[in-house]
Structures are given as structure tokens and as C-alpha cells.
């Protein structure tokens, strides 16, 4: 099978296209996903290829988007539901915190809920406090949900295909800043990326950095700069938060004895807290420096595009934090 260089957005598009071709039970709905092909162009051609029965626009009804997906799954479909911004998942609170993760469990496991919610997230383009969040932490604190946070086109495609075939509900966070980033992606329709397997993006021996989604490119850039100083950084991208590949992180920390977690969501109670506290407990004896988190500040995200840049970790900060931990 060949590989083609395509964008992250297009990789997501191909995953949906292939899975819809493979399985007639896969349907897609959300705002503007039909004729328009999505406000970010991610669903282009799907309406034309798979028809109005299976690709449907909805009104401003996030409660329906998520709750309707649960119902459709109960009825035997395998819905992909798109919210236009990940923030809107929080709008559909009952549906995303209750119906989606709990319906199966509450009813004694009587059915499966094979739903994928696609949620474009993160800071980009001055869209403000309610269109820029990275809410994966809220959902990680909700038992019953699987969570994907791809950082490359290949992972985006492979993880989304796994998600669509998974019988459990998956929230699939897409990073809007990455939509136009290109990468080599396999054309093999059976090449899946499994959930729960981290990817070591760069090997190193002095410090382990865990980052995902939009922070991976920034961390890799920082690692490159640090390499010039002779500092060797291992960069681990968990790719999915649930399940979380703890083994790969732990093995790396056993090697480097140092851990930094970098994420875009606000620091306090962000996903870094879970990883850091687990490391601080289970790897207590291995650590030669404090476990540190570098994350967004504890403020809503301003709409001013100049100011929003202050709301997620930048390369120089990552470099500085890494240096400090290594020199501890």
C-alpha cells in the first residue's frame, strides 16, 4: 500500500469516507457537515458520496447532536457526530457527561454505544473564550468515555478509524491549529492506529516530556533546540488519554528520571495533574527532579489574537522548563 502526503484535516476526511464506504451503519451529522463540507472543510465530499440519508446538517442543537448520537447507536447505527467547536460539548453537558458515558453501564451493559464525537479544539484565530478551549480533562474525569488526541495526520486517520469501529463512545479531539499540517498517511483502509499505545516521537535520555495534540509540534521544536545544547529529550505522545499508555511513560521516566508534561488546557486540574500525580506516586523512587507541568494559564481565552498567544505554552517556555528540570 502506498502513502500520500495529506493534511490532518484531509486525513480525518479520508477516515470517515473509508469507514462510511465499509459500513453502511456509519452516519454523520452536525452543523454544516453536508453541502458545505464543514466550516473547516473537514467533511467535504461526504454528502455527495454517501448521500443525504447518511450525511445530515442539523440546526443549533448540540443537545441533539450528542444525545441523538446515543439514541442512534442504541438503534443500531454507528454515528459520527460533529460539534463545531469542542467547547460546545460542554453545552451538551447532560448528553456528554451522562448519556454518552453512562447509558450502557446504568442499564447493566444491555447495549453498546458505538458513538464518535468529533470535537475541534484549541486556540486559533481569535474566536474567544467559548470557541478555543481544550476540554479533554473534563472528559477524562468521566468514566465511560474513550478519548483520542491525535497530533499527526497519520494518527488522526488511524485513530479515527479505530474510534469508528470501537463499540464504546469515543470523544475525538481534533486540533484546529493542525488542520493544514501535512504528513505522510497510508492509503491502506485497514491500517488502524490502536487506542492506548503511546508514540515515542523522539528518543532521549535526559528528560521525558509528555505532550499531545497541538503541543507536540511545539515540544518537538523545543527538543530540537535543546539538542543543540546537548540536552536529550524524549517526547512521548500518548495519542489517547483513555486508555492511557502508562507503561510507555513509566518506562521512559525510569530511563530519564525526569518528567515534564505540557498541555494547552489551563494548568489547574488540567490533564497534566493526572499524569504528574500518578508519576509522583508510582515512580516516586525513580525521580531525580520534581514532576513539572507547563500548561495554559488559569484564565478564559481572550478573543484578541495577540493575547490568545499567551494562553498556551510557547517553545521558549518549554525550553526553559526542560533546562531547569535537567539541571535540577
Amino acid at each position: 500500500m502506498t502513502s500520500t502526503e495529506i493534511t490532518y484535516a484531509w486525513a480525518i476526511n479520508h477516515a470517515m469516507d473509508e469507514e462510511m464506504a465499509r459500513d453502511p451503519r456509519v452516519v454523520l451529522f452536525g452543523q454544516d457537515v453536508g453541502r458545505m463540507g464543514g466550516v473547516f472543510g473537514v467533511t467535504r465530499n461526504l454528502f455527495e458520496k454517501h448521500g443525504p440519508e447518511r450525511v445530515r446538517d442539523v440546526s443549533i442543537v448540540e443537545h441533539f447532536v450528542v444525545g441523538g448520537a446515543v439514541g442512534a447507536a442504541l438503534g443500531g447505527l454507528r454515528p459520527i457526530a460533529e460539534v463545531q467547536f469542542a467547547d460546545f460539548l460542554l453545552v451538551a453537558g447532560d448528553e456528554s457527561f451522562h448519556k454518552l458515558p453512562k447509558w450502557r453501564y446504568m442499564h447493566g451493559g444491555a447495549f453498546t454505544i458505538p458513538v464518535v464525537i468529533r470535537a475541534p479544539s484549541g486556540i486559533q484565530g481569535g474566536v474567544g473564550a467559548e470557541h478555543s478551549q481544550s476540554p479533554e480533562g473534563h472528559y477524562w474525569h468521566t468514566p465511560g468515555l474513550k478519548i483520542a488526541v491525535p497530533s499527526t495526520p497519520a494518527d488522526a486517520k488511524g485513530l479515527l478509524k479505530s474510534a469508528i469501529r470501537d463499540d464504546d463512545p469515543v470523544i475525538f479531539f481534533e486540533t484546529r491549529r493542525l488542520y493544514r499540517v501535512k504528513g505522510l498517511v497510508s492509503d491502506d483502509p485497514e491500517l488502524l492506529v490502536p487506542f492506548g499505545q503511546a508514540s515515542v516521537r523522539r528518543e532521549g535520555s535526559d528528560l521525558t516530556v509528555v505532550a499531545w495534540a497541538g503541543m507536540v509540534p511545539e515540544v518537538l521544536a523545543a527538543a530540537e533546540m535543546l539538542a543543540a545544547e546537548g540536552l536529550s529529550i524524549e517526547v512521548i505522545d500518548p495519542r489517547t488519554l483513555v486508555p492511557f499508555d502508562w507503561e510507555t511513560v513509566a518506562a521512559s521516566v525510569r530511563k530519564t528520571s525526569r518528567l515534564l508534561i505540557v498541555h494547552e488546557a489551563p494548568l489547574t486540574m488540567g490533564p497534566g495533574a493526572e499524569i504528574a500525580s500518578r508519576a509522583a506516586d508510582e515512580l516516586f523512587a525513580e525521580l531525580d527532579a520534581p514532576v513539572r507541568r507547563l500548561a495554559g494559564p488559569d484564565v478564559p481565552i481572550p478573543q484578541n489574537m495577540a493575547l490568545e498567544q499567551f494562553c498556551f505554552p510557547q517553545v521558549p517556555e518549554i525550553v526553559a522548563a526542560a533546562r531547569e528540570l535537567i539541571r535540577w
Partner: protein
Amino acid sequence: MSDQDRADLLALYRQMARGRALEDRVNALTNSREFRGFFHPGRGQEGIQAGVCSVLRKDDYLLYAHRGLTYLTAKGMDPVRILGDFLGRVGGSTGGLGAGTVHCVDVENGIMGQGGTLGSSFTLSAGLGLASQVLKQDRIATAFFGDGASARGTFLEAGVTIAAWKLPVLWICENNGWAVSARLTDVQGTDDIAPRAAALGFYTEVVDGQDVRAVQAAARRASEKARAGQPAFIEAKTSRVEGHYTGDVQPYRDKDDVAQAKERDPLLLAQTQLIELGASDADVSSIWDEAVAEMAAAEDRARLSPEPTGDRIFEGLWA
């Protein structure tokens, strides 16, 4: 006044009786504190549940509400499984997790469960209707809910989508005029719910919920519409006889109101109609006796199943 009419009404009466007899057992379990969760009695509302379910196919979907149990048994669910849920036994439909009505489930009979938060069933019924439409199954998705729940935003979001997509969905509002201690007239601007659905493009019926035959007739029309892709809505006017939950003595409510509600008992009304249709007192009372015996036996059987152990909490989270 044919034999057929009498037979039909006897069948409806039987379902109302079964629902009430089952509820009597649950009330007893609640009062004896063997069941220590909340139960919301449906006394007085059996006619709606029996009437609507009588026109449904086995494979039609049901999302029920918290008030009473008649929809479950009328839709075909085994009372042993229901009582197993109340008694917290692994033989209950949730395998020991559920300890009340809230999450009884019976996929075979299209009973797809209930959420703990009111209004869950609007969006879920829309999704079930979508599945039926896409999969060309000709099943309809029904959801029961109260006047209070009909204020939830999900009503509107699911409603516009159901109407736009012409989904095979039937919603049934059991309007008993109360939500816990709040009178509908005090907390919502109107007494009537059906106009809201009409404004969205639903076919609507407003019916006396105490008259099981009227409910059945309305449900027949409405379910046919829904099956043909015209979303439908039934508002059944009814009364809550008991408190919000078993044990609620309703200090916030007029005694007269309760007394009136009791008089308009759907089982009593059906008895009168049955006698008019030529049934004997014995016919009627034997149905009740059978229902009582059935539910007593069901409880005995439910008890045979063991209680779950602590590990049960880790089962069934993932597929």
C-alpha cells in the same frame, strides 16, 4: 358494543391491573424499607401507559418515564426482572446495578431504558427514530414524560430535528399538572403542552388520560402518523394520585385535589365501561386477582436470585 369491544377493553384493563398490582408490591417493598431508593407511584396514570403500549409493536422502541410501571409490563417486560431490579438482585434487568425503576431495560421488547435526568428521552428517541429510518425498519420510537420534563431544552432541540427529518417518533406527555411540589400553572406559563409540539410541526392529540379507550384510539391514530414519518405527540391530561415518591404526603397540595384525582381512577372508569359492555363483576375481579397472584409469584421468583458482590461495580463499563 360488540364482543370485540369488550375483549379489547378487558385486555386493556388487564394491563392496567398488572401495572397497579406490580406497583402495590413495590410500594410495599418501599414502605417496609426492603427497597430503600425512591419510587414514584403511577397510580391514576395506568390508562395512558396501557393505552399507548397496546398499539405498539413488540419491536417499537420505548423510553419510559419515572412514574409507575405499567408501560414496562404492557410493553412485554417480565415483572420478575423489574422486581429483581428493585430488590437489587443479579436477576434484575440491570444485573444487580439498578435498584429501582430508573434503569429497567429489555432490548427484546424494545425497552431501551431511562435516564436519571429528566428530558433525556427527547434526544434519545430522536436518535432511535433516525436509526429506524436509516435502517428502513419501520419501527417507531416512543418516549413518555411528564409536564415538568416537557420544559427541558432537549424537547425543543430534539423536536425541531425530528420534525425536519420526519422521523418515526411518538412522544407522550402525561400531564398530571405537578412536578414534585410545583403546580404546572405556577412554573410554566401555560397548562397545555401540545401546542408547543404543534408549533414544531408535530401531529398532536389531546386526550383524557383517565379513559383508556380514548387513549388507545388517540395512540392508534398518532402511531400510524409516526410510522408514516409524521412525528406525533399525545398530551394525556391526568392526575397524580399519590405523592411524588412513595412516602411523600403532599403537604403542599389541596386535599380536594387528591380526592378528585382518586375519583377519576382509570381502573374504576374501565370497570364501569366493562359492565356496560356486558362483562360480569366476576370477569373484572378475576383479572385483578390474577394480576395480584402474578406479581406475588414474580416477587417470589425475583428473590431467588442472589445479590451482587462488590466487584459488580466494575462490570459493564466498557463493551
